[in-house]
């Protein structure tokens, strides 16, 4: 007799989880097989013992006076809560924790911009400007002009404002949702050597994000005027020297 299949069923039957048709087959088998009958008896006994033990393990009741002990504890808690200052409340703990986390997150987000602000200012040798009111991305902006021994080129809007490339200005530019269609025409200011004060004024204005053209003009008109470029004096070309007139040949020679 093949008992292997029935032995698997016996374990399930002991836990009352065998289907009806299989249970019927098993019952028929154990009626004839003493070994399987014995196994089924053992498994059922084990399952019963487990159930009884489980029930016994959680059947106990609390000791008498349990509810009263809880009431006393609640009364003590209420008294403690009453004596506690109103601002000290357990509800503040999670609120404070959430606030600290929010503040830390905000600081972490703001730190790059803040760091950019507190960084040392660039040396006087470099003046970075760009034309305002352009919707072009930052990458397409004109390269920064550099104050070298020669000429500094500053792009200034005709309406009289120059903006620095500070983070604030760039952010404002990036956040601008509507394109300004009628940008004022732009022009370039040629700064000649010797216009130190004008450059300085432009630089300071650029750092403060705005500068008026008038201010720039006044600065450039100050006492430190650029040296006027003297026209190159070119000696008159003596054509006669280059191309000396040949003596008129007598016609017909």
């Amino acid at each position, binding site marked *: 007799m093949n008992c292997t299949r029935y032995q698997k069923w016996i*374990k399930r039957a*002991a*836990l009352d*989880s065998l289907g009806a048709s299989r249970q019927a087959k098993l019952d028929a088998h154990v009626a004839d097989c003493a070994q399987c009958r014995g196994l089924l008896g053992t*498994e059922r*006994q*084990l*399952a*019963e*013992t*487990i*159930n*009884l*033990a*489980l*029930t*016994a*393990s*959680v*059947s*106990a*009741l*609390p*000791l008498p*006076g*349990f*509810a*009263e*002990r*809880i*009431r006393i*504890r*609640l009364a003590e*808690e209420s008294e403690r809560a009453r004596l506690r200052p109103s601002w000290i409340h357990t509800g503040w703990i999670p609120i404070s924790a959430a606030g600290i986390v929010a503040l830390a997150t905000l600081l972490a987000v703001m730190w790059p911009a803040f760091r950019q602000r507190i960084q040392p200012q660039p040396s006087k040798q470099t003046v970075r400007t760009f034309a305002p009111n352009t919707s072009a991305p930052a990458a397409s902006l004109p390269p920064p002009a550099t104050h070298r021994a020669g000429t500094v080129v500053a792009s200034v809007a005709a309406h009289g404002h120059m903006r620095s490339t500070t983070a604030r200005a760039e952010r404002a530019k990036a956040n601008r949702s509507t394109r300004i269609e009628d940008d004022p025409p732009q022009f370039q200011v040629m700064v000649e050597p010797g216009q130190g004060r004008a450059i300085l004024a432009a630089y300071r204005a650029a750092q403060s994000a705005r500068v008026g053209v008038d201010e720039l003009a006044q600065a450039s008109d100050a006492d430190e005027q650029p040296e006027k470029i003297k026209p190159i004096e070119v000696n008159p070309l003596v054509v006669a020297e280059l191309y000396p007139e040949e003596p008129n040949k007598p016609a017909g020679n």
Partner: protein
Amino acid sequence: MEGTVDTWIDTLPEATASLDIALGPKEEADWTAEREFEQRLAECSPLAFRVALGVIHSHADAEDVAQEALVRAYRHFSRLRDPAHFQAWLVRVTWRLAIDRQRSAVRRERREQAALANEPLPLTVEQTALSREFQDRIERAVDSLPEKLRRVVILAAIEGYDTRETAALLGLPEGTVRSRLHRARQLLAEKLR
């Protein structure tokens, strides 16, 4: 003492009426909430105790845990007025507190000491089931079950909580509870065979 408090609370409306003391709306709401909580306390404190006992197997610790769970329930009672919600919430909180308590080394030591007690050899199924030795074995076997099986098997073992009740307490479908219960019993049988 318990009866005294109950009696006093029961007679409060009459007492106030005879003294012609009018309760304000807030006082009346507080008083109603107190009464409701008293009712839940009477109904559910054995359940909380048994859940805790099923996890930590120590009467003293189970009472501590059940007390703590009920005190927390009192604090949050404004959100737990619905009886079914209250019961499910209480079981969850008690379970969590009991698991935390179980992890404490003190309780484990106590259980090991208790297991060392000498007892006569059992003879019948009941005697086997109730013997300290078998209780200790089954406690260890239950403790070693995965938590989702353990929760189901303990709740289903509590008298009066069948599969449907257990499913309602745990917020699970009945079929899930039934299959978990079967799996848990299979594992227990394997461990205790």
